[in-house]
């Protein structure tokens, strides 16, 4: 029931009006902002995507994953350091309360994309759709150096 | 005991063996040895006796001329074929035995099992045991080679030379490292070997007692055969 109601509310009030403000590092819709989406360059089929999510809307939004234009899905994963081995474990959909932020950071949280066809080279931008239930936000993921630990523009608040 | 194998005839013609520097070590115009006969080669040191023996066994390739055992001209054989010929046709005996001191008597006598085709290994080991027995060492097959006396060690070496049942035995000063009694016993064993089993035997030796027991005595000097009791 909750999900149905939630979807209905979204359809009525939050028809995604994507606001590109001229800044590549920022995507915004209905108070929801995603900043500094980035991923390290990779030649393999998997990529971990990091970003800062700010729920500036007046309701709880639930992060459920992301997908590319090509249809490849990305799921939410959480870092764990079990027995001295770094692993990423799949997480369920994650609610972000109104006014709360969620940071996806290396060795913290990430959207894990698998089955990439082409390598991601530094300087590329990978367009993805981050999904919060029915609310989808288009984000350009900037490809940073393979060994980067943060977005090259991080620290700016925009 | 395996049936005696008929000895091979030896025919040497125009043989010249050179040292790496080009010095002439041995030069034999003609030598015929009948199958199953025994020959002693004597002469002073440096006369070319051992060189001739090495040429007969194919351990050195002559500069010219040929060594023919039976139908086989050694000059026509490849290195591999020559090695195989030595393995199957020639038993070699050395002055200082050349045993593997860490191994037992039987393991030494049957050392060729290590590189023979698998199918021939057990027969060879069996024959090696029989020869040890016949040479009076049958009880001591498991004892380490270095625990035997000199005479006994040379008998182990003889068993090793005979284990693959070769038609030809070539020996280089086999009694030189032995005392008189052991030398005499070995001389008798070798003479009997040729006489009783029909093998062709060529022995380089200074030992007059041994030479006297053989069919024929060649004397070498300065690389040539200078005397032949047979002729």
């Amino acid at each position, binding site marked *: 029931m909750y999900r149905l109601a939630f979807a209905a509310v979204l359809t009525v009030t939050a028809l995604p009006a994507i606001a590109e403000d001229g800044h590549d590092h920022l995507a915004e819709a209905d108070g929801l902002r995603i900043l500094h989406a980035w991923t390290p360059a990779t030649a393999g089929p998997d990529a971990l995507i990091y970003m800062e999510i700010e729920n500036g809307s007046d309701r709880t939004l639930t992060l459920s994953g992301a997908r590319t234009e090509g249809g490849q899905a990305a799921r939410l994963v959480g870092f764990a350091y079990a027995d001295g081995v770094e692993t990423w474990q799949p997480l369920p959909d994650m609610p972000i309360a109104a006014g709360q932020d969620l940071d996806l950071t290396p060795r913290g949280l990430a959207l894990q994309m698998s089955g990439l066809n082409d390598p991601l080279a530094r300087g590329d931008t990978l367009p993805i759709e981050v999904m919060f239930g029915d609310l989808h936000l288009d984000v350009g993921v900037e490809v940073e150096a393979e060994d980067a630990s943060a977005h090259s523009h991080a620290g700016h608040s925009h | 005991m395996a049936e005696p194998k008929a000895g091979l005839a030896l025919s040497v013609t125009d043989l010249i063996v050179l040292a790496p520097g080009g010095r002439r070590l041995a030069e034999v115009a003609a030598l015929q040895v009948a199958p199953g006969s025994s020959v002693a080669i004597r002469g002073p040191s440096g006369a070319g006796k051992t060189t001739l023996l090495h040429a007969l066994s194919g351990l050195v390739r002559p500069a010219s001329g040929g060594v023919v055992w039976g139908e086989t001209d050694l000059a026509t054989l490849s290195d591999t074929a020559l*090695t195989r010929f030595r393995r199957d046709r020639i038993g070699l005996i050395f002055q200082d035995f050349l045993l593997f001191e860490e191994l037992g008597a039987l393991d030494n006598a049957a050392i060729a099992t290590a590189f023979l085709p698998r199918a021939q290994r057990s027969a060879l080991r069996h024959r090696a045991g029989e020869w040890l027995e016949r040479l009076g060492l049958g009880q001591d097959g498991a004892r380490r080679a270095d625990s035997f006396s000199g005479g006994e060690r040379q008998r182990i070496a003889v068993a090793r030379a005979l284990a693959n049942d070769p038609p030809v035995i070539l020996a280089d000063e086999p009694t030189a490292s032995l005392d008189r009694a052991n030398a005499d016993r070995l001389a008798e064993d070798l003479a009997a070997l040729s006489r009783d089993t029909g093998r062709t035997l060529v022995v380089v030796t200074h030992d007059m007692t041994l030479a006297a027991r053989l069919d024929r005595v060649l004397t070498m000097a300065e690389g040539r055969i200078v005397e032949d009791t047979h002729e």
Partner: protein
Amino acid sequence: MNSVGALWSGLPVLMQDVAMLVLLLAPGLMTGLLVLRGFAPWQLVRAMLRRFRGANAVFVALIAVSVAIGVGLTAQERGLRQGSARAAERFDLILAAPGSEITAMLAAVYLQPSDVPLLTGAQYTEVATDPDVVLAAPIAFGDSYQGAPVVGTIADFVAHLAGDLAEGRMFAISTEAVAGAYAPVATGDRFTPAHGHGAAAEADAHAGADYVVTGRMAPTGSPWDRAILVPIEGVWEVHGLANGHALSEGERIGPPFDADLFPGTPAILVRAEALWGNYALQSRYARPDMMAFFPGTVLAQMHGLMRDVREAMSLLAVVTQVLVTVSILAGLVILTRIFARGLALLRAIGASRRFVFAVVWSYSAALIAAGSLAGLALGWLAASAFSAIITARTDILVTATVTWAEAQLVAGFVSLTLVLALVPALAATRRQRLADLRS
């Protein structure tokens, strides 16, 4: 290639390990099969091993020690990494006043004393009353007794850290204490904490204030095994501060605390019910007046920084092993000369060049195999010994075991050196055989 990759990643881990071991051993084994085909050189190898007993023992020992260094180093490094990760496992999310995450982690998780600023009663109350938080335990370090840290916290933390007590009961008033599994006090003991740690500890600072030990925790494999846990109220009282409760509450300890009477805590362990909850809490409380971090993440970052060093060490160990083996193979060339008469005899009585090659190679292979196996065992022993020492010094339970990684390292080494052993074998067959026949 893609399908091979897919097939590989589809295999169970054990299969991957076994397959990798076999792949690494394959070049050496293939060399052996090719070299030995049709031959039975073992008696001769035995003869060579016996002839040069002394030299062989030295060679095997050298190979063993060099292999052991490589094995011990990697096993030890992994043991330390795993041990430190396990010791941090119960610490989901740490909140502390802004500063160095590493300092806060070393202090709160590994009980390495340091001065850190405090979180306030208001901050603690905000966290403790967050609906997503199921456990918000203050961790107040700074005092010690006979070198063992005395840490103020709440009863729920003790249960979270070590489960049910191994003996006795939980502290119930502010002057009671629960000992870590190997803490230097027994149940029933009475002790007075010193202010600070080590040589700088002021033994008399808290004179007159003492605790009675009422129970003992089960072992956790972490520095907490040497600690003494007391109610945080006790720590505050010992320092002459308010104890977080109004006088009207009497002797009650534990949450909820009165934010105004809460003197502060250096760190708070926070735990959410759901796995994702910890991540949400981390985002929520990482803010200018507070830092929130996962000890696992900080630890992984530290270990990540050391990865290059670790790889350099492994490489150096392998290079050392190979250099030692190359010197030994050079030594074998000399030994083989001593054995040359035997080899010449073999050629004279009809052994092929390839057979002589096989004998010498097998001899080298026997030394390499014996040395490598001994090295694996020796490395394991060394790593175990070092682990015991580190565990005794840090209380982080380090168990270094020889795993597939080490077996694979040794397998690669064995393969490489078995191929290198072709060189002395070749040298042996190149010799003039006639000269060797004469004494």
